[in-house]
């Protein structure tokens, strides 16, 4: 089972290293990356300062495995990686990282969008929006 969940924000160094690791894969001609960043929404006059993520990890990992398999069936990909934060991620930090690689560029755009949508819709991850005063509300994806 591939590791998806990381504790806390996804660091830019981690993303840079992920890119560097692919330099030895010479069949790749195109990468595409999606980064989800925690947005500082204002809700009823209150400012979101962070999102705290939790997940049903056992089910999430099974679902992620199915999503990966389906992406390889649908698109001609060399490799793909999905990472998502757990715990608290502050506004402006990265919480979601999808990295798709293929021979040619056309496949990677569609595959990235497919993966991002599948993760948002199918994977049991729950976000709690934390306000300045530590008040919170459960996030609903729009």
């Amino acid at each position, binding site marked *: 089972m591939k590791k998806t969940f990381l504790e806390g924000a996804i660091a830019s160094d981690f993303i840079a290293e992920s890119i560097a690791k692919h330099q030895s894969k010479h069949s790749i001609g195109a990468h595409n990356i999606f980064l989800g960043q925690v947005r500082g929404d204002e809700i009823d006059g209150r400012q979101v300062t962070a999102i705290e993520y939790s997940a049903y990890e056992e089910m999430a990992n099974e679902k992620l495995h199915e999503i990966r398999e389906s992406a390889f069936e649908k698109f001609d990909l060399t490799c793909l990686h999905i990472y*998502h934060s757990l715990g608290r991620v502050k506004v402006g930090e990265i919480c979601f990282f999808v990295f798709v690689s293929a021979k040619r560029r056309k496949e990677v755009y569609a595959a990235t969008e497919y993966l991002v949508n599948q993760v948002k819709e*199918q994977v049991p991850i*729950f*976000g709690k929006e934390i306000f300045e005063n530590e008040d919170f509300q*459960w996030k609903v994806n729009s």
Partner: protein
Amino acid sequence: MIKVHYFGIIAEAAKSEGETISSPSIPLKSLIGDLTEKYQLDSYQFQIAVNRKIVKEMDALELKTGDEIALLPAFSGG
């Protein structure tokens, strides 16, 4: 024993991340009915997973020892 997990707003309502039901077998529908009453979950929307798969139709489902169920509010990853 049947394991029950709560997540997100449901865990908050139940003031717990889960519990173990000692009954060796119970219809899913009656377990959900019991939990809904116990934690007053009527106003919440949630899906139910049995052994990590979302259940679409819970009427005929009988839970047995070793089963793992989860009450899942709307997913909000990303």
